[in-house]
Structures are given as structure tokens and as C-alpha cells.
């Protein structure tokens, strides 16, 4: 199979990641539960993963990096934990349902009001217009770093500066950019960074996290056992324990830790260069096909390594089915859990076929996928 659905999850993981998880399975007790040797094996592994994540995103302290099951989990902690009755939030048309649904729920339940920066037909958004949306009740700017549909990327440093200037929390969804783009929480003034481990970071599913720039007044999304302060009737207030009730996925985090080592060995800039090269190669091959419509802003210097398109008048699901059945190529059709951007692109009904690339893909795979698109377009 040619797997080009890496924006959903990376299929191919570094071999050291696979080994780390396999080894952890029979050697880890429960992290933060006791001090016998296998509990400590898990605890040290989790601690090391925490240190690596903090370093990777330039989060000020490892303890400000709490682990979650995925980015949706992290975003729910951030959105539900920070927004209060009557707050106003500025977000964008780029957002995934992992941001939109928690916001819509708070709109209904806590009278949180929402403003969305509009995207145009190429998915472009004017982030400089953020100040025009600010009201006395505005509490936060919440945006994704990279659209999971168009691949368009936001200038986090610029948005972070606007948020800082106006005293707003800046919450970032890095689902599509972690492991591809440079993310520096301190330089970019990011107050809360939510990421997943199983996409660009090439770790296993069931890993992710929320990183805070400083301890914030954040209400934990859930409470429970922590292995510490057991007589305390409240969730311990210290990070990361505040946000980590229940047994951690230490087996998965061992894998994520190994993936971070892999990224460090290869170099994030080299990973980014290869993924960009694969995406550009694909684009070059298909962009001149008469019946292929490509979505996104290709004049921008920064883009995530994915390309969404439609072929002739084929429904996106049909095109993906042909690619799977006839060519053994895995892509993602439909709305990609991002309804607002599809409305902006004019593809709300039809969806689009998304090709997304990983460091572990090859040029040969990309050329075969492009050839398949051409053949379907000409059929």
C-alpha cells in the first residue's frame, strides 16, 4: 500500500519507536504509583518524555507539559478549563471539530461568545484583523497552526504578539504542525500548546499533550487518582498532576520519547525539507491536469505537507475509493472534521481528497500517486 493519509495518522513509525513500545510492554509498572523498580522504570520513561517534549516546544519547564491521549483531549482541557461564563473567544474558519465542538458547547452552556476569522476561497485568513474582533470580554485567541484541509499555515509569532499586546490567552492546536514546523512557545507567546503524538511526531496513537507557558488558572477537565496527595479531596494543584488524573499511557509515551529522539537525530529541518519536497513534487505532477481542482494558498512560503483536491466531478469519497481499490493508495476524502473551511472552499457538500506526506514516504510513492490521479482524471 502507498499510504498518503499522514495528516490523519502516520502509518510508518521509526523502528526505534516500535522497539521502545514493545520493550515497555513487559517492563513497565504504573508510573507514579509506588517506588518498586518497574514502577520507576515507567516513571523515569514518562519523565524523560516530558523533558524532551518541553525542550522540543521550548516549554519553560517539563512540569508544565502534561500528557493527554491526543490533541482533542488536550484542547478540551484547555477550552473547558480556561473559558468562563460570558467570555468571548476569537477563532478561525480553519479549525477542526476538536476546537469547534468544545467551543460550540461552551457557547450553549456557558454563554461563551465566538467570533471566527473568515477564510476566503483559497482558505486564506487575515490574522492581522484580530484586533477588530476584540471586545472587553475577549479572553482568548484559539487557532490551529496548520489547516488540516488546505495545508495553509498561520504565523504564530505574529498572532502571539497580537494576543500578548491585548492581554489575551493564545491557545494553539499544533495537530498538523508538530513534527514539521518549528514551534517555540516562548518566542511565539503561546500560552497553551495542544499537540498529538501520532501524526508528525511519528509516535503511537493514544499520546499527546498540553503544554502551558506558566501555571494558569485552569480547571481540570477530570479528576481522580494521581498516586500523590491521596488524602487531598481535591485534584492536586501542581502541574502536571493537576491535568493528569488516572494511569498514563506510559507504554505509548515510551514510543513518543523514542520518536522524539528520531526527530532529533534526523533534524526537524531535514524532515521538513523532505516532506515539503514530496508535497511539491506531487503538486507539480497534478496541478496542470485540466480536471483537477486543488485547494489552498500555494503562494505562501510556509505550508504543511498536504494537498487537497478534487478530480472532475467525482465525489471525493468515490475518488478515494478508486485510489484504494484500483491503486492501493490510502488517502482521506470528505470533510476532514473541518466543516467551516470546506464551506469557505465551496466543498461543503462534496468534500475533497487529501494527500498528506510523511518523512517516511518516498518519491516513487508520490509519483505513483500522481500518476493515479492523472489516470482517474483522464478516464
Amino acid at each position: 500500500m502507498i499510504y498518503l493519509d499522514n495528516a490523519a495518522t502516520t502509518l510508518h513509525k521509526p523502528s526505534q519507536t516500535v522497539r521502545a513500545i514493545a520493550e515497555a510492554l513487559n517492563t513497565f509498572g504504573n508510573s507514579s504509583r509506588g517506588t518498586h523498580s518497574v514502577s520507576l522504570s515507567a516513571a523515569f520513561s514518562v519523565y524523560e518524555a516530558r523533558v524532551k517534549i518541553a525542550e522540543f516546544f521550548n516549554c519553560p519547564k517539563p512540569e508544565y507539559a502534561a500528557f493527554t491521549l491526543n490533541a482533542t483531549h488536550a484542547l478540551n482541557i484547555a477550552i473547558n478549563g480556561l473559558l468562563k461564563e460570558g467570555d468571548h473567544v476569537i477563532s478561525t474558519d480553519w479549525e477542526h471539530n476538536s476546537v469547534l465542538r468544545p467551543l460550540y458547547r461552551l457557547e450553549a452552556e456557558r454563554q461563551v461568545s465566538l467570533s471566527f476569522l473568515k477564510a476566503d476561497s483559497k482558505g486564506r485568513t487575515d490574522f492581522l484583523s484580530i484586533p477588530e474582533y476584540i471586545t472587553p470580554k475577549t479572553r482568548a485567541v484559539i487557532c490551529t497552526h496548520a489547516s488540516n484541509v488546505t495545508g495553509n499555515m498561520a504565523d504564530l509569532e505574529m498572532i502571539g504578539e497580537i494576543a500578548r499586546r491585548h492581554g489575551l490567552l493564545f491557545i494553539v492546536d499544533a495537530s498538523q504542525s508538530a513534527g514539521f514546523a518549528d514551534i517555540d512557545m516562548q518566542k511565539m507567546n503561546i500560552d497553551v500548546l495542544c499537540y498529538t503524538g501520532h501524526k508528525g511526531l511519528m509516535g503511537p496513537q493514544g499520546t499527546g499533550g498540553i503544554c502551558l507557558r506558566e501555571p494558569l488558572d485552569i480547571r481540570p477537565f477530570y479528576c481522580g487518582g494521581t498516586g500523590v496527595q491521596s488524602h487531598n479531596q481535591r485534584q492536586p494543584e501542581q502541574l502536571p498532576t493537576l491535568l493528569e488524573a488516572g494511569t498514563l499511557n506510559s507504554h505509548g509515551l515510551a514510543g513518543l520519547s523514542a520518536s522524539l529522539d528520531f526527530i532529533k537525530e534526523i533534524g526537524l529541518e531535514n524532515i521538513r525539507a523532505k516532506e515539503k519536497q514530496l508535497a511539491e513534487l506531487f503538486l507539480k505532477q497534478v496541478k496542470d491536469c485540466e480536471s483537477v481542482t486543488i485547494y489552498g494558498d500555494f503562494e505562501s512560503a510556509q505550508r504543511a505537507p498536504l494537498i487537497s483536491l478534487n478530480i472532475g466531478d467525482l465525489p471525493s469519497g468515490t475518488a478515494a475509493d478508486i485510489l484504494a481499490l484500483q491503486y492501493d493508495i490510502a488517502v482521506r476524502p470528505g470533510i476532514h472534521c473541518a466543516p467551516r473551511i470546506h464551506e469557505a472552499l465551496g466543498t461543503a457538500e462534496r468534500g475533497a481528497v487529501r494527500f498528506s506526506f510523511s518523512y517516511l514516504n518516498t518519491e516513487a510513492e508520490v509519483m505513483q500517486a500522481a500518476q493515479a490521479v492523472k489516470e482517474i482524471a483522464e478516464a
Partner: protein
Amino acid sequence: MSEDINYYILFDNYTHGLALYKLLQLDSIPARISPTPHILQEKVSCGMSLLIMPEDIEAVRACIAEHGAAYHDIAALPCQIKTDRFRFC
């Protein structure tokens, strides 16, 4: 290690405890990760502690100060284990 008194560094959570353990290792200050004796477990302390030798307390404090390491307290407690019956180091 003193025969009678044990010294425990207490923490709010494992992250703080493991962070200091690593720092002590780097400074070659011996410490053992130990369950926190129940009698020392106030509402705010964690299930793990670091058992240190009395002669190292000042070095431990210096290490904590140098790195701004988080900890809850350093507590003294008469040894809970009968050393004539159990191995304890």
C-alpha cells in the same frame, strides 16, 4: 546512613521528585527513591520521596538552590525498618 534517623525529601508529585533525583545524581549526591512513610504524608505530599544521608543534607540544599528545584520539605524520621532483620540501604 544514620542508624536511627532517616532523612526524606518530600515532593508534591513524582515529576518534581524525579527531577531532583536526576540533579542529585549529576552532583554525585547519593539518594534512594523510597515510598514516603505514611506518617510524613501530609495532604500535600507525594507517594515517593528521596532518602538521603544526614551528612549530605547541606549539599542537597545547595543543589536545590542552585537549580531552583521544586520540593515540599526535608523531614527527619526514626528508622522504620529493623535493620537487624531486613536489608536496608
